[in-house]
């Protein structure tokens, strides 16, 4: 086994061509658990944590933000990122503990592609673009085409996820999650809601209730027909409840060691109802 610690993307691609089967490691919060418990014994590892170009983010001129795959969650909880992407800040704050948020990254969430990854519902709600690079190619993929299933994604073995681009929307956005306690939990069910006033639309994405993150297109378009999302200042309880019911119908949860399908379906409905109520309560 070898461990490479490249300092730039160019060096990382050199390592990747030398050891094409290498596992890429960012913060280590997923891979190290597998290694500690002897679930995997990687042949080679390429650590991306010291690649500075992956640890930066910027606001682009077209009102979007590009976040490098190596930016730790703790940076999304505060400052300008929190101001511009409040749903991402809320999701980041629910990730593990301060120790996990100092290490964990969106790149890791995308690489692992667990339906319970806390960053992913936000990326689905915002229609994020995922940036992938190889030594010779670079491509942009919609998040909806990137995540293929439980821990499966469209990354080719010779590619590195370099970052994501998301729009800065005008409208309320938030993230909510159910787990057994406040800190240090993996989602039993989660939801991200974002209002897009400019397009008179609402987006809601669900985590941990299906093989991929689920966008509830039917519930979204139903709500768009009920109220004018750009000008509304409140939403009545019956409508919020019906929205929750419709969201729950679009979830595809299963029973597993963390919860039951029935509870998860109920929980995402409640989360959706709460989020839309919060969106129109000020």
């Amino acid at each position, binding site marked *: *086994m*070898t*461990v*490479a*610690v*490249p*300092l730039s993307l160019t*060096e*990382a691609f*050199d*390592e990747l061509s*030398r050891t094409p089967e290498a596992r890429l*490691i960012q*913060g*280590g*919060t997923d*891979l*190290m*658990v597998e*290694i*500690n*418990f002897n679930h995997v*014994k*990687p042949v080679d*590892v390429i*650590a991306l*944590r*010291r690649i500075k170009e992956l640890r930066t983010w910027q606001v682009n001129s077209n009102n979007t933000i590009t976040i490098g795959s190596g930016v*730790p969650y*703790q940076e999304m909880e505060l400052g300008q990122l929190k101001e511009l992407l409040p749903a991402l800040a809320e999701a980041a704050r629910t990730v*593990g*503990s*301060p*120790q*996990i948020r*100092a*290490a964990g990254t969106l790149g890791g969430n995308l690489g692992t592609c667990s339906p319970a990854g806390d960053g992913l519902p936000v990326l689905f709600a915002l229609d994020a673009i995922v940036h992938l690079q190889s030594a010779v190619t670079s491509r942009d993929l919609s998040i909806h085409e990137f995540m293929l299933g439980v821990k499966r994604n469209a990354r080719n073995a010779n590619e590195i996820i370099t970052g994501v681009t998301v729009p800065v929307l005008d409208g309320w956005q938030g993230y909510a999650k159910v787990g057994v306690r*406040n*800190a*240090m939990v993996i989602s039993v069910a989660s939801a991200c809601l974002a209002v897009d006033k400019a397009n008179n639309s609402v987006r809601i994405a669900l985590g941990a209730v299906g093989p991929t993150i689920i966008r509830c297109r039917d519930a979204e378009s139903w709500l768009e027909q009920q109220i004018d999302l750009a000008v509304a200042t409140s939403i009545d309880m019956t409508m919020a409840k019906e929205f929750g019911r419709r969201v729950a119908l679009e979830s595809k949860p299963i029973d597993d060691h963390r919860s039951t399908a029935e509870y998860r379906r109920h929980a995402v409905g409640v989360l959706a109802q709460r989020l839309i109520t919060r969106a129109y309560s000020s």
Partner: protein
Amino acid sequence: MSNSIGNEMYTLRINGQDRSVKDAWVGESLLYVLRERLELPGAKGACEQGECGSCTVLMDGDAVCSCLVMAATAVGADIVTVEGLIEKDPSMASTAEVITSQITDVQQAFIEEGGVQCGFCTPGLIVAVHHLLDKNPDPTELQVKESISGNICRCTGYGRIFAAVEAVVQVRKASR
């Protein structure tokens, strides 16, 4: 030039010293390397999946779970373990005090306030509390709770630990 480490030696910067790790499998966690290779048993191993915080160390100024850091990837990082906090503690700057006490103000407060029972979680909590107070000398109750939410203590019920944090805040305030 990128470092590709096979089974040869690599060097980690720990508590201000360069420490070489020899004849080790390169997939080992930093926690394992600290405890089993470098005779630094302060960080404790319990869950080995980042849940309990008993292995907390500082890496480039961030509190992280050393069980989730592949040691060989920490080459070039500045690592501080609970054993190394004494040098970092500003209130222990006078050499006489370092020699006589060998513990930090946070450790002293944990003793005085009864924040230690079985003691297993204590090193991780000490590191987490130092990290909090170095960045935020006057935290709110919520900030204290959030900052140690990744450190599980099954004995104290946390009340005595919050009291210890508050005691350090007051002592440091008075000495400013």
